[in-house]
């Protein structure tokens, strides 16, 4: 299904690409087909659960150190993401999960260590090669990051227009398929400013999937969605991964939703991987830090407070200076 040329990031024959996209679109309608005829297609096409024999890693981070100013965001993170799997990065807010996606996308350069995507060290290739490589990636930004000067339809059509020579009719059909899959075909003529945050996220998801990339990165896909939209997105992410075989990297702190779709989970905290495993294994993990995170306890080894001097001391301190004022 995925040609070797495509793996190299070369531009595909647009006919092949069109065919694949149509096939993919039909797969997205699979639940309807399944409900009509009770076939067992899903067993054939779905990838196996996480399997230790997999050797083909799409993304490899080797001892990555990244600092922002004086703050160390990552202090030696190593992880691998196998092809075709859905891997989740979890952890409390502020642990640099989004930064991790940007490192994988080559938008940030690590201070040391290597980021290898599809066998290429992403910081050793030229700018042109990097942009070539990114055609195989799709990223869903937390804010959606839709182009505000383009309609919903044009937003989804944008990557197709830029990267393919498909005819206008064909693009129209593909865009409508993508929008149908996120339930927003009826909103195609609206502009992003006319949509709610959750709808913007769904349009952004349709756009990220527009070229059926090999690697799909989701930055907090579940935050700020109503339960129905959340369910839709959870299913959609899982189905895209199963049907198309794309590799999904989900960054989130929503335990239930993420655990339900991820093959493998890395838990990040304090710039390190503090735990990893399949969702069920992780639930059995006895490490107090991981248990705290999974159960959502506010008190535990992971501090709720930003580092600060002693509370009572600071409140009672004499000559405390706040800005221009001083309390004598």
């Amino acid at each position, binding site marked *: 299904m995925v040609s070797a040329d495509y793996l190299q990031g070369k531009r595909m024959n647009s006919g092949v690409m069109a065919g694949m996209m149509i096939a993919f679109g039909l797969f997205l309608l699979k639940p309807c087909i399944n409900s009509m005829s009770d076939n067992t297609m899903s067993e054939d096409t779905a990838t196996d659960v996480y399997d230790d024999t997999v050797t083909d890693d799409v993304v490899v981070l080797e001892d990555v150190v990244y600092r922002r100013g004086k703050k160390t965001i990552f202090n030696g993170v190593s992880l691998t993401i196998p092809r075709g799997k859905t891997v989740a990065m979890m952890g409390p807010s502020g642990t640099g999960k989004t930064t991790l996606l940007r490192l994988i996308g080559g938008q940030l350069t690590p201070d040391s260590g290597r980021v290898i995507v599809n066998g290429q060290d992403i910081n050793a290739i030229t700018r042109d090669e990097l942009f*070539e490589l990114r055609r195989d990636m799709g990223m869903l930004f937390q804010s959606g*990051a839709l*182009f505000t000067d383009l309609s919903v339809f044009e937003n989804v059509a944008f990557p197709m227009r*830029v990267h393919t020579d498909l005819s206008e009719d064909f693009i129209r059909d593909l865009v409508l398929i993508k929008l149908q899959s996120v339930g927003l075909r009826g909103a195609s003529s609206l502009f992003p400013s006319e949509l709610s945050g959750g709808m913007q996220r769904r349009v952004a998801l349709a756009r990220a999937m527009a070229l059926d990339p090999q690697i799909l990165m989701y930055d907090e896909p579940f935050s700020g969605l109503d339960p129905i939209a959340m369910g839709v997105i959870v299913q959609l992410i899982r189905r895209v991964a199963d049907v198309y075989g794309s590799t999904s990297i989900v960054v989130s702190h929503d335990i239930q939703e993420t655990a339900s779709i991820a093959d493998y989970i890395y838990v990040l905290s304090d710039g390190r991987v503090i735990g990893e495993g399949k969702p069920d294994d992780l639930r059995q993990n006895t490490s107090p830090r991981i248990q705290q995170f999974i159960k959502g306890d506010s008190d535990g080894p992971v501090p709720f407070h930003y580092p600060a001097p002693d509370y009572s001391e600071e409140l009672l301190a004499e000559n405390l200076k706040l800005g221009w004022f001083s309390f004598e």
Partner: protein
Amino acid sequence: MLGRLRNLGHYSLDLFATLGRAGRLWWLAIFRRPSLGNVSLVVNQIYRLGVLSLVITVMSGFSIGAVLALQGYNQLVKYGSESALGLGVALVLVMEIGPVVSALLFAGRAGSAVTAEIGLMKTTEQLASMEMMGVDPLRRIVAPRLWAGFFALPILALMFSVVGIWGAAVIGVEWLGVHEGAFWSTMQEGVDFVHHVMKGVIKSVVFGLVVTWIAVFQGYDAVPTSEGIAAATTRTVVFSSVAVLVLDFFLTLTMFNF
């Protein structure tokens, strides 16, 4: 003392780093195989930066031409040489005021808009998402605006001069009663296309490049917050105004044989 020295060092390093980033932006946006597919983007930007600046340019041009005619007539009539009014106004407009004032207006009208637009695209992650789609924002967003400034400003400056001369004619000939034939014939005699008009055009080409470069860079380099964009927009107008006036001095010095 040591502190001041350190500040000076920091400041200079920052300055050089900024200049380096600005130069790199320009290089990456313009000097790498410009793609023909982006012509429509350039045309779109010429419309937004150039055509939409027409009203302010034409109105300012007419007013300045009219004022030049009033003041010029007052002085010239003392020596009975008011027939040279056309020549004087045309030369001043074509060589100096046309390129300079239209560049200043362009910086305020179009440059600030470019900075705010690109800065907001950065803030809302639109640039980042474009990068992740394998589309280089330097080519897609920055390059068309740079080219648009390059083409639009010289045309705006010429229109400014033309409308200015017309304004001077309305005031000088129709109202103050300068002889019409003298007004136009001294102009025809004294204004040389290559020596005067083209040098004015060269000036406005340079101004167009510099103003859009500053505007685009300030937007692209803006701190992605509300204050960051406000500061960047201000810097665009301030820097490009100063750059235009200083460059004008040096261009005049080099081009007009002093």
